[in-house]
C-alpha cells in the first residue's frame, strides 16, 4: 500500500486571552491509500483541529502551525502558497463537515454548488458540470436526482444534505476524504446509510478516509486503524482490532466501556469522571491524570509520550511500568 499522507510532529498553537495554548502537540500519523483511519476522542481533544490543519484551514490568526510537517504524496503542504493549496483542496483532498446545513450555501441550488466544485477543478463548462452533478447525486443515492439538483439545501432532509456534501466531496475523485463527525446531527438509520455510502465510495473511488468521531461504535464499523486523541496529543494508536480488543491507555479503556451496549444489559456504566481539561490549564503532568484511576506520582510530574511498551503504541506511564 502506498503512503498518501504523512504527518509528523505537528504542533498547532492558538493565541487566547490566557496566552498561547498548544492545541496540537507532536501529532504524528499516516494514511495509506484506500484505508480508513479513525480519529477518536471527546470534544476539545484536537480532532477537528487536526482535520483543519490537514486542509490548511486553521484560522490564522489566532491559530498557527508552529512546527511539524504534513507530507501529501511526498510533497510538503505546510508553507505552500494559498493558490496551490486551494487547487489541492477539493480535488485531491476533500472534507465533509459535521453540519451539512451550515456548510452548504442556502441561496444556491445543490446542483449548482456541486457543479461549482467541479468547474473549479476540472476543465468543464457549467452545463456539463451540472450534468455531472446530477450523475453524482444519483451515485450517492438521492432519488430523482434531476429534480433534486434544482432544490435548495433547506428543501432537503438532513440525511440528503449530507449525501449532497458527500457528492460534492467526491466530485473530483479525491485521494483523501476527511469526514469530521459526518453523522452527529443525524438519526441512527440515516447514520447507517451515510456510513454504508462512505464505505461504498471508498470501494468505488479508492479514496482513503479519515473519520473523526467520538463514537467507538462508529470506529468499529468503519475504521481500519485508529488514533485516540486526548488534550491535543495522540495517546494511543493501532489497528482497529488492537484498540477495541486490547485497549492500553486508561482513557481508551474508558471510552470503550462508557458506551451503553446494544448487545447486552449492563448494571452500571464505567464512567470517566470529570471533563477534558481546558488547554490553558494543562500542567507538567499527564493531561489525563486527574481523571485516571491509575495515576501515580510520575503521572503528575511528566507528560508521557507514545511508547511501544504495551501491545501497541500508547502514552501511559502506568502501562509502561505494568501497573494496570
Amino acid at each position: 500500500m502506498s503512503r498518501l499522507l504523512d504527518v509528523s510532529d505537528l504542533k498547532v498553537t492558538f493565541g487566547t486571552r490566557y496566552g498561547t495554548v498548544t492545541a496540537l502537540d507532536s501529532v504524528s500519523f499516516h494514511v495509506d491509500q484506500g484505508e480508513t483511519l479513525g480519529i477518536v476522542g471527546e470534544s476539545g481533544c484536537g480532532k477537528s483541529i487536526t482535520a483543519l490543519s490537514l486542509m490548511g484551514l486553521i484560522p490564522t490568526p489566532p491559530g498557527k502551525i508552529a512546527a511539524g510537517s504534513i507530507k501529501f504524496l511526498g510533497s510538503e503542504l505546510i508553507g505552500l502558497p494559498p493558490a496551490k493549496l486551494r487547487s489541492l483542496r477539493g480535488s485531491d483532498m476533500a472534507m465533509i463537515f459535521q453540519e451539512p446545513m451550515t456548510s452548504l450555501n442556502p441561496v444556491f441550488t445543490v446542483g449548482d454548488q456541486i457543479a461549482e466544485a467541479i468547474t473549479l477543478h476540472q476543465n468543464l463548462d457549467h452545463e456539463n458540470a451540472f450534468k455531472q452533478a446530477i450523475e453524482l447525486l444519483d451515485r450517492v443515492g438521492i432519488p430523482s436526482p434531476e429534480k433534486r439538483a434544482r432544490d435548495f439545501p433547506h428543501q432537503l432532509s438532513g440525511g440528503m444534505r449530507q449525501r449532497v456534501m458527500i457528492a460534492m466531496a467526491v466530485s473530483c475523485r479525491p485521494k483523501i476524504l476527511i469526514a469530521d463527525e459526518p453523522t452527529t446531527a443525524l438519526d441512527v438509520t440515516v447514520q447507517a446509510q451515510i456510513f454504508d455510502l462512505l464505505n461504498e465510495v471508498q470501494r468505488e473511488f479508492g479514496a482513503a478516509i479519515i473519520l473523526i468521531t467520538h463514537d467507538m461504535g462508529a470506529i468499529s464499523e468503519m475504521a481500519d486503524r485508529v488514533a485516540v486523541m486526548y488534550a491535543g496529543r495522540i495517546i494511543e494508536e493501532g489497528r482497529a482490532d488492537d484498540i477495541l480488543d486490547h485497549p492500553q491507555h486508561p482513557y481508551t479503556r474508558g471510552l470503550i466501556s462508557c458506551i451503553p451496549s446494544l448487545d447486552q444489559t449492563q448494571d452500571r456504566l464505567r464512567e470517566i469522571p470529570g471533563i477534558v481539561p481546558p488547554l490553558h490549564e494543562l500542567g507538567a503532568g499527564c493531561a489525563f491524570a486527574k481523571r485516571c484511576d491509575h495515576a501515580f506520582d510520575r503521572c503528575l510530574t511528566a507528560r508521557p509520550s507514545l511508547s511501544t511498551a504495551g501491545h501497541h503504541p500508547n502514552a501511559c506511564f502506568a502501562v509502561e511500568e505494568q501497573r494496570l
Partner: protein
Amino acid sequence: MTALLEVENLTVRFPMPKEGLFGPRPYLEAVRSVSFQVEEGKALGIVGESGSGKTTTAMATIRLEDAADGAVRFQGNDLLSLDDEGMRAARRDVQLIFQDPYSSLNPRARVSQIVREPLDLMDIGTAAERDARVKELFKLVGLREDQLNLFPHQFSGGQRQRISIARALATNPKLIVCDEPVSALDVAIQAQILNLLAQLKEDLGLSYLFISHDLGVVRHICDDVAVMYLGKIVEMGSRDDIFERPQHPYTQALLAAAPSLSRRKSKGYTRPLTLTGDPPSPINPPLGCAFAERCPRAQAVCRKDAPVLTNGVACHFSGPAE
C-alpha cells in the same frame, strides 16, 4: 404492579396553513392514537427517528402540548380534564428534563435559584427549608455546595444537566419525563449522567418516560420500550423482548443501524438490512402501514390496511429477523 401513568389513545394534531382562503384547514397528526403505561419505579423508553412523534407524545402526556383526543390517567386523575389549578398541583409529581442543558437554564439566574424555583412556585416549605432542600439536592446529583451561587455558564454540559436533574427532583416528583437527556453530551459525560439517572431511579423509586434515539442508552436505562414510527407505536415490550427478540421489521432495522462494538469492519461486517429513504410525510400519511414503503417484507395488504398493535407489535408479517 400498578400503573403510575396510563395513556390511552392519545392523539395530537397540529393545524397547518390553509391552502386557499375558503379551503378546509389541513391538520398534521403528529401522534396517532397512542396507548402505553408507565409502572411505578419503572422506566419506559420511547425510541424512533426524528419526526416519529416521540417528543410530542411525551409533551402531550404532561400537557405541555394540547391533545386532540385520548385520556391520560396519572395516579387516578385524568390529567387532560384537570383545570389549571389542578394541573398546577399535579405538576408537583411530574417533572421534566430537557435535551439541551445550555438553553434550558436561565442564564441570568444563579443555579441555587434555578433549583429552588419549583419550591417557590409550588409554595413548599419555609425559606430555610427550601434552602436546605436545595443543598440536599446538590449533594444528591453530585454537585458541591460551593457551586450554589454560580451562574449556568460557569458549568460544563454534564454539570448543567445535573442542575436540570436537581431542579426536576426539587418537588419530589414520581414521574420524570426525560427528553433526550444525554444526547447533547460527550460519550464520557453521558455515562456519568446515565449512571446518575439509574441511581436516582433506584434510590427514590422514580418512574421515567425516557425519550431517546440512542438504542444503547435506552437498553441501559429502561425497563420497557415503545418503538414509534410516524406517530404510532409499532412495537412495545420489555427491554429483553425489544432487544433480544424484536418482531417488527422497523425495530430490527433500527437495531441493525445502531453502531456497536461487535460490528467490526476488520471482521468483514456488512449491515444485513439498511433502511433506504425517509419516513413518509405526516401531513398525508399513507392509507396502509406507514412503514410499507421502506419495509423489506411489505406486501399488497400492507399498503391497504394499517396493522393494529396486537401482542406488542403492529405488523402484518411480524416475526424474528431473517
